[in-house]
């Protein structure tokens, strides 16, 4: 389908632009990512919402008042527990471990489709436009009760795609 795009940005395309992401206080610098697994918050609009702030056991995410403020992320406080990933109603929080292996990073993301992939499956990693950009090995599929039916999936992807891959291609249903 011919999709003409005059402008970039989340309000026109549905995808936050690089500029919008880098300008948002929840999006960590690449330098911060090199220090260990941390979350990446891709929240760029003033939506009245703050469960990420309440759930963080380390106080690494602060919204404050009013609750339309963008979450401010303090990467040095984050231990990468990922509790904020399933609670975010916008599914806008991810975890990235850039140091997973020499040429691999891991990306964790919320996933609410069936069927779920299984550990060790090789699936397709997709970027923010849904385009398959690499093979991804499923490392973890977490769905404890406290996640309230949002599964958090962790995949290993080529290191250079750590800030591109944000989900996986939906798996075909059995008919």
């Amino acid at each position, binding site marked *: *389908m*011919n*999709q*003409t795009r005059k402008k970039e940005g*989340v*309000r*026109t*395309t*549905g*995808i*936050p632009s690089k500029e919008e992401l880098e300008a948002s206080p929840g999006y960590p610098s690449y330098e911060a990512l090199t220090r260990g697994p941390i979350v990446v918050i*891709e*929240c*760029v*609009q*003033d*939506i*009245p*919402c*703050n*469960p990420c702030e*309440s*759930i963080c056991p380390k106080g690494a995410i602060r919204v404050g008042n*009013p*609750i*339309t403020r963008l979450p401010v992320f303090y990467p040095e406080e984050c231990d990468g527990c990922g509790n904020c990933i399933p*609670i*975010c*109603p*916008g*599914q*806008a929080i991810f975890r990235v471990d850039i140091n997973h292996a020499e040429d691999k990073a891991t990306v964790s993301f919320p996933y*609410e*489709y*069936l069927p779920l992939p299984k550990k060790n499956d090789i699936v397709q990693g*997709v*970027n*923010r*436009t*849904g*385009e398959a950009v690499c093979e991804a090995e499923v490392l973890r599929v977490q769905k404890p009760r406290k996640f*309230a*039916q*949002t599964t958090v999936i962790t995949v290993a992807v080529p290191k250079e795609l750590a800030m591109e891959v*944000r*989900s996986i*291609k*939906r798996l075909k*249903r059995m008919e």
Partner: protein
Amino acid sequence: MGKTEIAVVGGGAAGMTAAIESARAGAQVTIIDENEQPGGQLFKQIHKFFGSGVHRAGTRGVQIGRDLLREAEEAGVQTRLNTVVYGIFPDKRLGLICGDHTEELASEIIILATGANENALSFPGWTLPGVMGAGATQTLININRVLPGRRILMVGAGNVGLIVSYQLLQAGADVIAVIEGLSYIGGYGVHASKIRRAGVPILTGFTVLRAEGKESVERAVIAQVDEKWQPISGSEEVLEVETICLAVGLSPLSELAWMAGCRFSFLPALGGWVPAHDENMQCNLPGIYVAGDLAGIEEASTAMEEGRLAGLAAAESLGYLPPEEGRKRKEELRNRLAALRIGSFGEGRATAKKKLMRAMCEK
């Protein structure tokens, strides 16, 4: 003729919370709902809500619905289901249709929480089976667990269009595209991002020209529009779809409020004609309150806070709350409401709500 102290018309998000607050304060409360189950739209809201802890953010609407049903029962709210309110008559008498007969219910206070209607969009082929409201689609997939079609076109990129598109994907359908007449996506960017990641294109500046098909929808023809919403010739595209979902806004379901004689204001930011009300959610007619989408199209979280406010104010007016406690709790609820109406998505509604309250003072 039956009697109650507070009659709540509509058992959705606003009506349930209103009834719970009034009943907890000690009032005798009856909810009247035309459906088999109370809960309104909450049970099809399978996504997690926005807001803060007091607004139950991060909790799915369906869970909030279950909790409200339990709270209403514990608070002693009477519920009349499968019952249609067909009219409001002098002295706050409600006319009810209960299956094969009618009844009257006299009440000291009426809280109208009738919700909203989906707007339609007419185009050649719009009466073909397969063209339906996005809200109806959401009921089919999340309540009845039936897919209306495998290949879907969603018309409208407000929150309803975006959320229902996501839920259609969850239900196993393919959303071929979301189109939006405006040049921008009106709903939350995060809802749009979710479906973009799933590979769904969102086409802004597009409208649906016609639906085609023999017995039912087989394809949709869409086209780009100019600034005056006129289709640009040569920009037509054909999409092979079985279902066209319309998510082009909601209008307050206001017949009973009109019949009661409430004063109305026309406020597009709130969905059209809306009954004026004061900061207690009371209309220009003493003893008639409004809450939720009827009082202006907003989110379920706002509807619940408005319901609580109306329920509390109604109970207070019957003397069930000490003035000081009533004042404090209402103030708290107003602050919670205000928190949901700030920022670029809320400001327009906040301004419109102020106008609605000013309209109360006009002669």
